[in-house]
């Protein structure tokens, strides 16, 4: 028995930075959903004579990302040209970074395990070739060309498909929490390539294979599982792994050979002469650090300290939209935080899921959620009444206003309750006499009293006042 093979995985992640303008010109970036080639300018088109100017916002966002990944960012950073010919690259070179990336040597903790970050660098994205069905030509859309990208590379320290999936989720939530990227794989704003090799535990690293064309976290996990099995089988059969680039076939759920090592391009990297090296000073870093919002890991700790259940705290800290609503609802709330969380993760999430709605697109006001829970805490609303009101609160209604408007409040004023009791008792002295000796007869009074109060009185309170009157 030779023992099982284990995968050794490194990830290469591309994130679109959410900046106002493209990385090297003032061209607008909000092209998603727009007609082809409407978001271009002379630089984006690669016209003769154009020069890149580095977008300060992209630099700041890259630094913020680097700090969140515990990277070294101080010192000089430089751009290089990566030369290759392809019609979607208007200059036929990409402005990228080579030996002085903006972020170097960081790490991320994933469930207590340290995953090393080799580097993260800035570069410009290419345009897109469009292949109309059955047409004997392709079309070029340069809207995406020049979009700011950050490419991060991990050390080969990820040990399973599941860990890769969790890691990707964490990177996405960090990017979203920082507000540096929508990190949305569906819009192509987060893309991932996988480097994977297998070995028997304790052995040296095996030959790695790169897998491309992975368009969701799920396909990353599936590709890792597929490659682990494929490579293990080859090695078990005495074969050798070749250092190839594979593609992922989402339909067939398998990898296929894209190119062999011999087919690798020589990118002829050289320092970009149009952009002088950039010095990242301690001062710049301090400025960015001061602007950093709370990171998911810090959020988790804070939620735990508020007594929120760990599993709830986990999912809340990973979601920018849930945590934003929760944090806002927590303002001035004096009850147990978990009360708010139960509503947010329970009925609110259920409401959204049922309608396939995103939290940030719903009309829920965090203050209204807080108000609803406060009304329950104070005994003004029963749980059942609150659930009914939630439908309108999700549409933007203020629960306090609804309660006032409709007289929905539970009647908890002893004076009001006592007056109703007195009325019923005076109307039916016979039953009152019976009730004084026979506890079962009390119910014959209780019913009419509740009816008189419109069913909105707290039953325990009614019983308490009624009993004291019968005793007195």
């Amino acid at each position, binding site marked *: 028995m030779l023992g099982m093979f284990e995968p050794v995985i490194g990830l290469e992640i591309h994130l679109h930075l959410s900046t106002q303008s493209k990385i090297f010109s003032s061209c607008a970036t909000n092209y998603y959903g727009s007609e082809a080639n409407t978001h271009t300018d002379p630089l984006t088109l690669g016209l003769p*004579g154009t020069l890149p*100017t580095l977008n300060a916002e992209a630099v700041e966002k890259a630094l913020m990302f680097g700090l969140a990944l515990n990277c070294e960012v101080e010192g000089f950073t430089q751009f290089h040209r990566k030369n290759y010919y392809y019609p979607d690259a208007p200059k036929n070179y990409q402005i990228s970074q080579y030996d002085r990336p903006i972020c170097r040597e960081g790490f991320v903790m994933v469930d207590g395990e340290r995953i090393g970050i080799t580097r993260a660098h800035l570069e410009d994205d290419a345009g897109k070739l469009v292949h109309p069905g059955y047409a004997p030509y392709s079309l070029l859309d340069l809207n995406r060309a020049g979009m700011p990208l950050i490419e991060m590379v991990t050390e080969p320290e990820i040990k399973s498909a599941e860990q890769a999936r969790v890691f990707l989720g964490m990177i996405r939530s960090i990017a979203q929490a920082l507000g540096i990227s929508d990190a949305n794989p569906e819009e192509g704003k987060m893309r991932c390539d996988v480097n994977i090799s297998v070995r028997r535990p304790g052995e040296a690293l095996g030959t790695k294979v790169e897998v491309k064309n992975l368009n969701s976290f799920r396909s990353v996990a599936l590709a890792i599982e597929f490659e682990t099995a494929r490579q293990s089988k080859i090695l078990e059969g005495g074969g050798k792994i070749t250092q190839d680039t594979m593609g992922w076939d989402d339909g067939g759920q398998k990898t296929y050979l894209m190119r062999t090592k011999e087919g690798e391009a*020589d990118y*002829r990297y*050289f320092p970009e002469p149009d*952009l002088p090296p950039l010095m990242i000073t301690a001062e710049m870093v301090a400025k960015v650090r001061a602007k950093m919002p709370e990171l998911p890991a810090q959020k988790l700790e804070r939620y735990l300290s508020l007594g929120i259940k760990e599993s709830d705290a986990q999912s809340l800290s990973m979601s920018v939209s849930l945590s934003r609503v929760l944090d806002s609802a927590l303002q001035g709330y004096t009850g147990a935080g978990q009360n708010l969380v139960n509503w947010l993760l329970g009925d609110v999430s259920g409401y959204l899921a049922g309608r396939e709605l995103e939290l940030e697109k719903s009309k829920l006001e965090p203050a209204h959620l807080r108000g609803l829970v406060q009304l329950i805490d104070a005994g003004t609303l029963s749980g059942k009444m609150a659930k009914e009101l939630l439908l309108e609160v999700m549409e933007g209604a203020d629960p306090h206003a609804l309660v006032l408007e409709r007289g929905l409040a539970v009647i908890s004023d002893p004076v009001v309750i006592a007056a109703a009791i007195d009325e019923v008792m005076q109307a039916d002295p016979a039953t009152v006499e019976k009730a004084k000796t026979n506890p079962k007869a009390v119910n014959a009074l209780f019913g009419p009293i509740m009816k008189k109060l419109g069913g909105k009185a707290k039953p325990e309170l009614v019983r308490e006042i009624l009993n004291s009157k019968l005793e007195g």
Partner: protein
Amino acid sequence: MSATALELAHKIRSKEVSALEVMETALERIQNTDARIGAFLSLTDDALSRARAVDAALARGETLPPLAGVPIALKDNLNFVGSLTTAGSKMLERYRSPYNATVVGRALAAGLIPIGKTNLDEFAMGSTTENSAFQKTHNPWDTTRVPGGTSGGSAAAVASGMVPLALGTDTGGSVRQPAALCGILGFKPTYGRISRYGVIATASSLDQVGGMARSTADLAALLDAISGHDPLDSTSLEAKPQFTVALNTSVSGMRFAYIKEALGAGNSSGVALALERVRVVLEGLGATFSEVSLPSLAYNIAAYYIINTAEISSNLARYDGMVYSHRSPAPDFNSSMSQSRGEGFGLEAKRRILMGTYALSSGYYDAFYSKALKVRRLIAQDFARAFETFDVLVTPTSPSAAWKFGQFSNDPLAMYMMDVDTVSLNLAGLPGLSIPAGFELQEGKTLPIGIQFIAPLLQDERLFSVAQAFETATSSEFLKIAP
């Protein structure tokens, strides 16, 4: 058009002559002369209407910008909205620019009127303008000879009196050398003093825009108009130079030194005489002359052509026929790109793309590109050391006066060697000014000789003090319009 730019501007402002008359005279001169010279690739559509606008503004009593109504020629690698901008290449034969280069925008703001686009070596690669895909430009002093290059069209246009001013670009001497061969002033500033935005790139770390004129004061006025920081060029420098104010600074006490490596047997006798002449004239004005050695210049040409071709191989990659450049249809895009480039580029462009691609290839990068960058640093250090002792360094601009067409056509290396005096300034980023300082008689023709003056980084203005002093002392004897 023998008047200088400043004289014309003054006459227009004082209504001695209208801007329209100036423009019509210039166009007439081009009409009469350019068939023989071949300086212009195209004339701009709106020069006359711009001239009329100047006259109208003057009639309304508006204050005119300093050079209002003065015609200027633009090298055809400068983007000027609506104009054909070919870079001398078939690749861009029908390309009309949709935007202005910063220098063109600034020239317009100073009141200058672009009259036409001038011939150049394809993508500014060459030393004679013979690499233009479209036409030959002839030296106005002897039309059997080259005007120099790559800004040969601009130099010939100024030298033959078609325009008083022209813009060129200088990657390895492309403003200074044709200025020398055509008998006019040609200046390349410190790298970063003039914006490269809108200048079709040859080799980005070497390219600078430069000016050409027939008087030092004109050149200073032009440079004052176009220089200074530009946020669209990340390599542009902050401090704005002041050229015109430097004209009156005396050269008395200024310490000059010939660069030893640029003297000797390689230079023609006319060049040797001109080198001697500038010494005599400037010493007469109180300057001192010595000699200094810059040993690293031995590797000057080798380092230059590695860096130049490496950057060219990348800069010229964008011309693939996909969006705007010459396109050769083919069944697939790889073939189309290859064919387009095969048809669109001339021989020298192909040669440099090949050499540059090779120099950057994995396995060769360290042996070539890295080493060339080291030599570049050494050359810069040698210059810096020389400038600890001297204020201005002096070399010929070219080892000889203008040569015949085709003389080096089959020997590219010999042609590259003709750049020996100029390329080191581009490697070191230094400012240089070529001043006409002599003539040499060949085959019965008078040919001008230029001497190059070099200043330390950011001391560009010093060269204008020198040029003005020499011009005054020699009564503009060497600044004549070609016969």
